[in-house]
């Protein structure tokens, strides 16, 4: 994808990176910049001093080694560039995190040839990871991120940089990815009772028992994602394999997690409370539905349903 002249010359390209992309990015000469760093400039002064001494004493071997050092320093700029170029960088899917926790950006770095790379730093905001790629063809780097708010979290510029081999030049490549991470709301129990009366603590037990005995509908083979509380341990102990108890869906009561029931709370508190309830209901194996202003999710359960609920909560914007 060629760049327009204005984009090519914009300062942002050097610091923030080119326009965000949701595919893998291959580091090439357009994306890698090389400049001498502080240590490189210091060496330049040393080389200058060596040159002055050589000129002053008109010393041939002094000249030879001064120029050799300068040439080696110069050559190191190529190696610095080579250390980054050709890497293919992509963001991979991350599990969804909850606001307030520390999440990770998963960076996949792929060496398409079989070159060895040394001491590459991957930086995102204030976090820095240093790694070598020694014959591994694919390397996953996890960069921790502080997730403060629910909603879409867009990673800011990820900068790959290296000062290899001599620490005189810094080659860097700022990368922007268009792969936002969904951040669920923080689950906080604000102490509100669920409007569904069954859900006070003692009755909860009662309810479970009722569900466990009366509404038992049969067994079905265990699948990942089934609530472990529903595993039929008797069958398992009898070495019949793993089975889940199936309950009659129509008979089990469904709970509505309702925005209205959180009325006394502030907006974010409401969402946190609802989020807490979603997680609680899911772990209890209950069927639950979600009612938000203008949004309604029919009662259900399972990982997909939980994700749908949490996503609605994460992205909820009051009108």
């Amino acid at each position, binding site marked *: 994808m060629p760049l327009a002249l204005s984009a090519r010359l914009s300062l942002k390209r050097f610091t923030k990176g080119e326009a965000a992309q*949701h*595919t*893998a990015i291959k580091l*090439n*000469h357009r994306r890698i910049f090389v400049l001498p760093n502080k*240590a490189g400039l*210091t*060496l330049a002064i*040393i080389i200058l*001093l*060596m040159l*002055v*001494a*050589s*000129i*002053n*004493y*008109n*010393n*041939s*071997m*002094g*000249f*030879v*080694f*001064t*120029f*050799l*050092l*300068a*040439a*080696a320093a*110069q*050559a*190191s700029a*190529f*190696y610095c*560039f*080579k250390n980054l*170029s*050709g890497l293919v960088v*992509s*963001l*991979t*899917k991350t599990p969804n995190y909850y606001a307030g926790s520390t999440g990770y950006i998963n960076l*996949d770095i792929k060496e*398409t*040839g079989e070159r*060895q790379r*040394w*001491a590459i730093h991957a930086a995102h905001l204030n976090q820095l990871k*240093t790694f*070598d790629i020694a014959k591994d063809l694919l390397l996953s780097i996890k960069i921790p991120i502080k997730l403060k708010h629910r909603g879409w979290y867009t990673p800011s510029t990820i900068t790959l940089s290296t*000062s*290899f*081999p*001599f*620490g005189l030049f810094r080659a860097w490549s700022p990368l922007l990815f268009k*792969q936002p991470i969904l951040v669920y709301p923080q689950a906080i129990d604000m102490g509100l009772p669920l409007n569904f009366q069954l859900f006070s603590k003692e009755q909860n037990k009662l309810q479970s028992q009722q569900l466990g005995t009366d509404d038992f509908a049969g067994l079905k083979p265990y699948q990942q994602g089934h609530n472990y509380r529903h595993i039929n341990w008797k069958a398992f102990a009898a070495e019949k394999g793993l089975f889940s108890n199936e309950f009659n869906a129509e008979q089990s009561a469904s709970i509505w997690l309702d925005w209205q029931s959180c009325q006394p709370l502030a907006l974010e508190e409401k969402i946190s409370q609802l989020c807490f309830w979603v997680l609680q209901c899911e772990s209890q194996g209950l069927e639950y539905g979600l009612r938000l202003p203008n949004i309604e999710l029919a009662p259900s359960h399972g990982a997909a349903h939980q994700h749908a609920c949490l996503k609605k909560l994460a992205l909820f914007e009051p009108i």
Partner: protein
Amino acid sequence: MLIKPNLIKLLIAIGVLLIVPHIASLPTSFILIAFTLLVWRALTLWIPKTLPNKWLLLPLAIGLGFFVLKTYGMSLGRDASSSLLILLMGLKLLESRTARDAQAVIYMSFFILITPFLFEQQITIALYALFIFYLLLLALVINNTQSESLINPPLLRLSGFVLLQSLPLMLIFFVLFPRMVGPLWAMPDEQSAISGISNTINPGSVSNLALSDETAFRVRFNSPAPPQKDLYWRGPVFWETNGQSWTLTPPKQDSFKQATPLAEKKSDIHYTLMMEPHHQFWLYALDIPASAPKTARLTHDHQLVLANKLSRNISFDIRSTTQEVITKLSDNDLKRALKVPDNIDPRTFALANSWVKTSPDKSAIVKRALLFFNNEFYYTLKPPSLGKNPVAKFLFETKRGFCGHFATSFATLMRIAGIPTRLIGGYQGGVYNKVGDFYNIRQADAHVWTEVWLADKGWLRVDPTAAIAPNRIEHSIDPSLQRINSDINFLLNPPEGIHEWIQQIKWGINSFDYYWQNAVLAYGPEKQLNFLSGFGILDWVDMVKWLAILSVLTLIIFLSVILIRQNQTHDPVQKAYLAFCKKYAKKFGVHLPHETATDYFNRAIKNYPEKTEQLKTLKTLYLNTRYGKAAEQVFIQGVKHFKL
């Protein structure tokens, strides 16, 4: 980032290697302190408690700084800066705790690397320094990677590659970087060991040199070489004596004005003379120099005088003549050449006067005197010491001596006899190197002879040593065979058998050294202009221009090699697949990073159900090339023929 323990070990080793070439040239106290600092740092590796803190290091640094100041004074010359640098390197290493400190130590080491060359520039030291240079590059790499081990083959290889890769650019700069004449600032007068003839001659001074195999200068003749016995290499001319020693008075302006250079056709011998730095103002030339080379001036008594002391290797193209040149003798020079010191022994007077009385003319006196030496004297390297009146004691008591004894006493006798005489210091002979086709004139060839002025012949060379020991003039002294208090050995017979081989090897090494000196070390402002004018590069503007062009060209070549090698894709199937994805990105949507090939094709089929068959075939083909055993070409052809 903390400094790596293994890197400290490497830096200590480099430090030791850097100090070793200085052992001979710097005061022992500094060498010992520098070694102590390194040993101390090594100790801290095993006993971390001994690592000094800054409250100990700071006074130590100040103290050592004062020590250097006290030894050398305020001037920051070659010796002072070398001493200071090796101490600072040790101190910095003691203080180093982080990778950044290590970087600073490495930088200092690079500077220290060139300091031995201010003392000596032999090829052995250059190769030694090249090895240290490689180690320093390795230290830089280790310091800037996560490698804990020093022996990491890819990194060892990389340091070597960088070194090799920097050679072309270094050569371009070495040849084309404009050299300047003269120092940028006045350097303090360093106490370099003056080798060879000094500016005072006393009877015994030359015999000390006879044991030295060191090269004084080398000569390559561009015209037929004169016979060995005519190889008198003329240096300083001595007029003044106090009876004990002869001292050189620097030539005055008049002397340069009265000089009479000869026309080119009258000078029959052309040669290139490659001087080793001897830290003196004069140059040596085959007797008699016809004219001065570019950077030197000719005096009326045929000395070649430089503007500055010679502190580096320079080669000179000189013309000389072996024909007699008749010169006039001014009244002033007559007075100088006849001045007899006051404290001459009466016996000396009596001897000279007896010759005057019995000889018909002045040339007869000279002959008489030579006969006198020939009859009664003995040529030896270790003559007995002479007292306050060396001439008389030598002539009448010891009668054993070296060329210095003969020349000084002969000159004194001639002056008493009323013949104007001067003393010439220089070298005689030289060893011909068959391998390199040049004469190697060694310190052992140092010689002193005289010139007398006869009215009809002008200044005439008289070498009393030749009268006593003709062998000395026909053959060179062999320093390797000299024994104290024994006969002098000459290089008489060509060696045989294994000795011949040894000689061949010696010649080979010496020739290599000659080329090294001539091509590399002597490459200064004069030689650079001379060399580059052959390519049409005439001044420094041209040099800078070509320097820029050639270095940019080199960089472009390196860069294009890197870019070409990087763009080579290795896997044809992957190449075709990616090209396919790129081509249909707008229609099927971009290939997402988390998508597998199956996902991608399924998505494409969903978008274009009418192409289901073809897409399915492509998918299967692709998966089979990846995971099964399908022919790569089939998939590539399939991709080629696919059309929407």
